[in-house]
């Protein structure tokens, strides 16, 4: 049931931006993904289209030729109407292992004291909530997750670090996430995920898609080390649960 007022605008000559109301809402994300699925499966099968969903928007990028915007806008409106017949895309809940050991959780003591919680309460809160993936960007495989409990909201660090480890799990503002590769970063680091979020050696380098859900679970250092070895030889197993549409 597509029921939103959408805006369709040109974004240069090679792209079109479609926007929904500017809110972080799951019903909006579901509507975007329903439409995205319709476009991918029905009308934009041509491989020269890239479809990038994020929060309240989807950007369609045509790599080969300039888009005739006026003509395409009419088609998109028609397709948006047709897409409401479509079921929502399949969603998965991914359970991701995180080691909250002090070796990785370099900011956990500070985070706990800022939030007036014990370290184990921070971990308990972080692992008990289910997060929604609203966008992938910034770095290959970097997740923008929504749904962080208010009790875990903490500002980003005043001075970003020059180097944050690959797999580092952080908190910043209303967000939590994983650094998919070593990079500079300003998030408060509370653990490390043993599963690579991006692996260029795989045909599908990033297993997760916008709209999926994430839940973290706590693992011991020994299990973390085992996952790491499994990851290197490419036999790590991911826990995923198919959710009802």
């Amino acid at each position, binding site marked *: 049931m597509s029921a939103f007022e959408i805006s369709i605008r040109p974004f240069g000559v090679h*792209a079109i931006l479609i926007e929904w109301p500017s809110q972080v809402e799951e019903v909006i994300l579901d509507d975007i993904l329903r439409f995205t699925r319709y476009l991918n499966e029905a009308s934009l099968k041509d491989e020269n289209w890239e479809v990038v969903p994020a929060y309240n928007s989807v950007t369609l990028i045509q790599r080969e030729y300039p888009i005739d915007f006026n003509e395409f806008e009419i088609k998109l409106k028609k397709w948006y109407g047709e897409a409401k017949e479509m079921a929502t895309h399949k969603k998965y809940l991914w359970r991701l292992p995180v080691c909250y050991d002090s070796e990785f959780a370099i900011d956990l003591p500070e985070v706990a004291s800022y939030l007036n919680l014990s370290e184990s309460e921070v971990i308990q809160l972080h692992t008990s909530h289910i997060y929604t993936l609203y966008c992938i960007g910034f770095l290959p495989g970097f997740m923008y997750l929504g749904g962080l409990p208010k009790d875990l909201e903490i500002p980003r660090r005043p001075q970003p670090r020059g180097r944050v480890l690959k797999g580092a799990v952080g908190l910043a503002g209303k967000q939590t996430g994983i650094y998919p590769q070593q990079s500079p970063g300003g998030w408060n680091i509370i653990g490390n995920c043993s599963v690579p979020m991006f692996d260029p050696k795989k045909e599908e380098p990033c297993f997760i898609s916008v709209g999926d859900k994430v839940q973290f679970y706590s693992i011991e250092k020994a299990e973390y080390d085992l996952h790491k070895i499994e990851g290197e030889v490419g036999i790590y197993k991911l826990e995923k649960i198919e959710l009802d549409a």
Partner: protein
Amino acid sequence: MLKVLKAGLFTTIQDQGRYGFLNKGVPVAGYMDTFSATKINALLENKKEDAVMEMTMTGPTLQFERATFIAIGGANISATLNNNEVANYKVLKIGKGDILSFGKLESGFRGYLAVKNGFQAPIVLGSRSFFSSITKKNHLQDRDVVDYIETAVFNPKITELRLDSFLGENLLKVSAGPEYELLNDKQLEWLFSKEFTVSNENNRMAYQLEEKIPGHEISMLTSATLPGTVQLTPSGKIMVLMKDGQTTGGYPRILQLSDKAISIMAQKKYGDKVRFKLK
């Protein structure tokens, strides 16, 4: 094999770019100056997906170990083949052991070298374009080797292109970006009346400009960005995203460069001036 005797400042292999993974946060990459790179590929009658070498300011010194044909283009970096000056946009015959080197930067910023049938750097996620965290190398280093296919005979339809150089152009043609309408009159006036200087913060990801325009307090949800997207930070700093730029961003996207303007920008270096002109 092509032997990299000296790598130069920042030399990479680039093709049209890496598509199909933008929704997973993978930047397009690919040659920064599409205009120049595609011209030399065309001279060699290469396929459009064939990879070229991109060099930045200081070119490499290269030794060819097999016969082939090459063409160079983009920036003028005083190229010599076995110590004889060679011109841009001309098909050159290469013999075993020939040495191509580059000297003083005369104009532009990024030079290109195409070889018959393209450089055979490994294909990762559908592209040979170097990008850190995706490909093994993010730039070539001294003593690296790059593979290419031997070609003894080639009769080009055209042996030389005469192009009006665009390297001195500084007018960037743009269209309105998605958040253009949120700009106020003062910001618009500054944006289109001022000349902007390329800051030393410029690379394959983005070009920052030195002069600021009045800032803003616009807050928006993170959304897709493209090569050529011009972002405005709250403090009024202007950033032009380039080929390695991130796929999403949270700053207002005020302008979008035309394809040609991206090529013009790619040839600018620290201290060069640019202006924006709405199409």
